[in-house]
């Protein structure tokens, strides 16, 4: 328990910041137009102002009450996000099978226990499954393995 509700202070603060950035960007980079004939910037600017307002409304009361803050589960968060990144990096140059292998390997780092059998088994099984569903079943032109030039 903290003296102040940091969860809502952070959340509201981030919204305030985001909203202000949107409103500023919309009013400087885009044409606002008039209410009768609205330009591309007017609606986003209104949205930004509204968002900033909600951010304030969430943040201010949070200074006057106690609150809790959840701990970030760093390891699973990083591993799961990185596995998506690994897939994005490998799919174009190397093809589907290496991308699946990279994804599964990185994803399994989320756990503290290393399971070599489960890892190899998952890669083989999922590669086969992906081949059957996306290539054979849906007939998508996905390269299975590709050598980068």
């Amino acid at each position: 328990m903290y003296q102040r509700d940091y969860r809502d202070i952070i959340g509201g603060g981030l919204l305030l910041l985001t909203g202000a950035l949107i409103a500023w960007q919309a009013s400087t980079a885009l044409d606002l137009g008039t209410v009768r004939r609205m330009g591309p910037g007017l609606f986003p600017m209104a949205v930004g102002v509204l968002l900033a307002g909600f951010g304030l409304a969430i943040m201010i009361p949070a200074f006057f009450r106690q609150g809790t803050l959840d701990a970030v589960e760093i390891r699973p968060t990083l591993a799961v996000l990185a596995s998506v990144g690994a897939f994005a990096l490998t799919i174009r140059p190397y093809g589907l099978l290496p991308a699946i292998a990279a994804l599964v390997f990185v994803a399994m780092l989320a756990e503290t226990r290393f399971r070599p059998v489960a890892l190899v088994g998952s890669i083989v099984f999922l590669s086969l499954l992906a081949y059957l569903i996306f290539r054979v079943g849906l007939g998508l032109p996905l390269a299975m393995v590709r050598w980068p030039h």
Partner: protein
Amino acid sequence: MDVFGTLTGNIALGLNTALSASNLFYCFVGVFLGTVIGVIPGLGALAAISMLFPITFHLDPTAALIMLAGIWYGTSYGGNTASILLNIPGTPANAVTCLDGYPMTRQGRGGVALLMTTVASFVGGSIGIVLMMLFAPTIASYALSFGSADYFSLMVLGLVAASTISDGSAIKGLAMVVLGIAFGTVGMDLYTGQARFTFGMLELADGISLVALAMGLFGISEIIVGVRQVGVARIDRKSVTLRAMKPTRDDLRRSIGPMLRGTGLGSFFGTLPGTGPSVAAFMAYAVEKRVAKDRSRFGKGAIEGIMAPESANNAADQTSFIPTLALGIPGSPTMALMLGALIIHGITPGPQLMTEQASLFWGLVMSFWIGNLLLVVLNVPLIGLWVRLLLIPYHLLYPAVLMFICIGVYTVNNNAFDVWLVLFFGALGYGLRLLQFSAAPLLLGFVLGPLMEEHFRRAMLISRGNLMTFLERPISGTVLAVTALLLVWSAWAAFRQSRNPMLSVTN
């Protein structure tokens, strides 16, 4: 006009579409996958639909919607399995079923509970479909006279209701709606073609991909939270044999009332914006407890306590299509995905849908019947298979889910940029969870935002910049008044809630 003549004509047209070999196949695939994902705890209907959404891009619109809808109501059928056998809700809509379903399992009556909830689901779903067939065309014919101002106001009502009624803080829900609308403005401006918030990235010219947003927010963040969940289920196989499923005469007698009341409540709450199957199931349980002669039986394996919520969530699944298909205004995030699917397939949702795309609409509705029948067939005899699914450890499951998300999103446009977007929205989704913001209103705002902007600008052009048009038009004015009442009510409720803990501290 001969209403029933038109209805039978439409039914024939729908059956013709729904019974084609390929549509039957995709209906089966949808309900099967829906059941699978519903059975496995930790993956809700929203994650299921967003995960399998990309596959439907390669199908024709009718087949795509039939499959997506099948996944949607299929999860409600499958979701009770884990609730009853393991005391873990398969999907949030089945959470209440745990209360009496699990005690039934512990008394060795798990089989009866599984069979009876399948019956409840079927009855609830079927009545929901009938209501939809009767009401959706009527509402649509009224809606044909709606103008842009009316649509704008209806969308405001939908968004406000969705963020204030559902779980959590109303102001945080509203903030998420607005954040979603902000994400919706990314891309080319419809009127001038000017790029907005693309930061020079060509990939963003068409806007943020709905698939990437939904998968990141609901799929990836779900997995991050779920990775640490350990432990393999232990299930008594004997309680789920066909023989163990035979209900007693007393079970049947006690079930009929709750099933019908649950269906009624579910049908009603399904159509309201912001209240999906979860709210419906919860309300149905609360009502059963209130009307019961002997309240002490609840929570200890009362069959009424599983029949009411299970019929309610399936009825709500079906009736939630009414506003989505008749008005083009989704009341829940899942329906927003459906709407997104329609838009991506080049179909404009709204009251014209039923006349212009009659075979799609009636084909979809008729496929609901087929899907619900298939679900009964799939659920009862195959229960052994579903139980085995519950035994798969999560560490084998989540890499598979991640793979489906990545390949799915990659194949939509064949570009890796969308996969990076999934990463971004996954991180955002997890952050929102930590800060206790609900991501569902964000999705709703994202889908409705561009439509709202279009209607707002059109209304302004028509009224020559007179903002009063929103209040002066009778439909729009009434809707906005209702919205204002809702806001006042939720502000008051929040105020009362914030006062209560203070009182309890001083006392």
